[in-house]
């Protein structure tokens, strides 16, 4: 599993919130950030797939990231955003509670995922970034994209 997105000396991260935790993904994987919009439910899909949206003429799936990571999903509010990411040529929207900032993190400050104990299954994690007093959980989007198989099975 190559993870080019985190491979240079330092990475730029888009930092967002899920509940009280801060998460980050490489800015290179982020296509755009949208406000919450109408989502069309798609029947016979796992519950973390909220449905599909229209992004300038193309239809793309939206995943509720909190449900995907088995966290308690809350209500959507004004801060709720959809981050459009590109994973292996597929565009996916991810619903997050809020997008806070873009920051630069030296790669040395990233701890590999195995040493962390947390609520989120380690498969979906790339590591944890430390910056000042904050801990930013870095997600492994490629692993998250593996959800395609599960969908088909279900």
């Amino acid at each position, binding site marked *: 599993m190559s993870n080019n997105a985190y491979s240079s000396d330092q990475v730029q991260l888009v930092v967002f919130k899920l509940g009280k935790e801060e998460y980050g993904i490489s800015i290179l994987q982020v296509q755009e950030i949208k406000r919450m919009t109408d989502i069309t*439910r798609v*029947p016979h899909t796992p519950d973390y*797939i909220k449905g599909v949206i229209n992004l300038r003429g193309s*239809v*793309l799936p939206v995943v509720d990231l909190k449900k995907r990571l088995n966290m308690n999903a809350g209500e959507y509010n004004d801060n709720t955003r959809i981050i459009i990411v590109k994973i292996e040529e597929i565009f996916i929207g991810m619903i997050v509670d809020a997008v806070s900032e873009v920051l630069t993190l030296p790669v040395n400050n990233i701890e590999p995922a195995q040493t962390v104990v947390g609520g989120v299954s380690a498969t979906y994690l790339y590591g944890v970034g430390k910056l000042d007093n904050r801990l930013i959980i870095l997600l492994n989007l490629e692993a998250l994209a593996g959800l395609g198989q599960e*969908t088909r099975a279900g």
Partner: protein
Amino acid sequence: MEINQYMGMFLEESREHLQTLNRCLLELETQPDNLSVLDEIFRSAHTIKGMSATMGFTTVAELTHEMENILDMLRKAQIKADHIIIDVLFKCVDTLEQLVECITNNQECSEDIRPLVSTLQALASGQAGFEAAATLAAVAEDSPVQSMLALDEVDTKIIYTAQNQGMQAYEVIVSLKEGCLLKSARAYMVMRTLEELGEVIKSVPPVEDLERENFDLKFQVVLISDREPDKIRDAVMSISEVEKTDILPYAKITLDKKPRLGIAESKPKLTAEPPKENIEHSAVQSALADKKIKSGQSVRVDIERLDTLLNLVGELVINKTRLEQIGLTHRLNDLAETIELMDRITTDLQAVVMKVRMVPVGQVFNRFPRMVRDLSRDLKKEVNLIIQGEETELDRTVIDELGDPLVHLLRNAIDHGIETPAERQAKGKNPVGEIKLIARHEGNNVIILVEDDGRGINPDVIKRKAVDKQLITQAEADKMDSSEVVNLLFLPGFSTAETITDVSGRGVGMDAVKTKIEALGGMVDIETKINEGSKFKIRLPLTLAIIQALLVKVHAEIYAIPLSSIDSTINITPADIKTIQNQEVILLRGQIIPIIRLAEKLGVPQIPNDTHEELFVVIVHMGSQRAGIIVDTLIGQQEIVIKSLGKLLAGIKVIAGATILGNGQVALILDVGSIIQ
């Protein structure tokens, strides 16, 4: 890398030219004396040769080059386009097609062109009666020394050009003195001297051999020079140890002397147009022709770009709708007018973009005359293929998929449909069978007919076969009427051919045809009469990208049902619903139709206080199956652009795709087939 950029263009154009070759060769076969057809063939071959040489595909270039030789001779009426030659040329085209295919797939090509090349060469020389060695034999007849030089085409052309520029070509035969010690040095000096006087275009033995002293005392050189022969002789003779120098001027070349042809034997001086002029002439002609074609031709665009364009137009339409809504809320007259104008423009734009994706069905039809010719020959039948309506346009995506099913149908028509000439004569028919391939518009559909005047399909035979193959029972067979029987042809594993040929009759054909056409959103019908022939009617939607659909609402959700699978819509009350073995059904004009509650099937979340006194039922069909789908309301009929749900959501059974509505919302398109099952 840079070459790659032209690769696509090369491949496309090669294919186009190969198709032209095929078409023209067929024409040539029927009218061997048609010079304009020959010219077109020549041009196509020439273009392929040029392109492939530029791209570095030497095999292709080599083969086309040999073809050109033959074609050139045909053009000059030096040989006749008999069936042997035409067959060989067809074979060349086939080989070229394979070569191009290999290039497309980026494979090493195993195709060996050598046998073909030698056949071509044999044709060129064999028919020619005598060999190119005597070529040009510009040797003035009164010349005391016989030329030993054989000039190839290139040399001849150079000489010809030189002569046209007022220069002379000489054959210089140099003999060195017996006992000459440094033959190679002498030869070198001779060559240098000659090169100062003019241009040496050839020497026998070749320069390398001269340098290695790999020659006897004599060598020959072909020299182009504007000097007098005597001057040249003096210059050469001034070199020591040269015994003798003979200078033979080449006669003014009239290349017809290049005696490739039988006729030339008896009349070696036969005058044909000088080739140079001929070449120029044809170059001009082909340039003209190219121009003519190009003015009616098109720009090649990647279909993906068109899709992007279509998407953008779709976006535009959606945003226009939003503007309209704003205009309505704020009641601005100026805005309303502008929007109206914009509305017209976007509608036109959408139509144009859709049109751009359309290609004439001729693109598929073009390859059939050749196929029919080959097949009917193999099967010893005489078939006349009539193509009509090749200008009928279909969406590119449909066109690409259409080839295989049509091949199947045509093969069936030739193999099973058309009888042998003897049989036809016995029936009092024209011994030449007729197959019609017709395309035409019919409403929002395109109809493609494959019609033969052969023996037709005998329903009794089909019944018997079907029973034999245990596809149906005897009892079932007895109940069937003839149209039902004919439809048995489409059952998987059915084949009526008495003997299985490699052409058809493996029992996969019709089944595959039906599947393919249905996958394209079309239908196949058969009409047949014994001894009068059969007619296969394919009905296809104009495009796959845009379909007519009925939008329906289920609670808060909107779904689109393709109109092509809708029979009708009716209103019922809950009381009309009966149950048979726990299956809800309704009675429609005496027919029992199972019903499906869409809300339940799709798990649509209930909205409180959302009850309907009246139920709308959309009666849909897929094949012979019918069902009623219960929805809350009917929104209306609309043209929708089909979008895929993408990889992540692929494989959801009941949904065929998605579309974007006027307000920017996404609506899902139902897959009627899987909902019914």
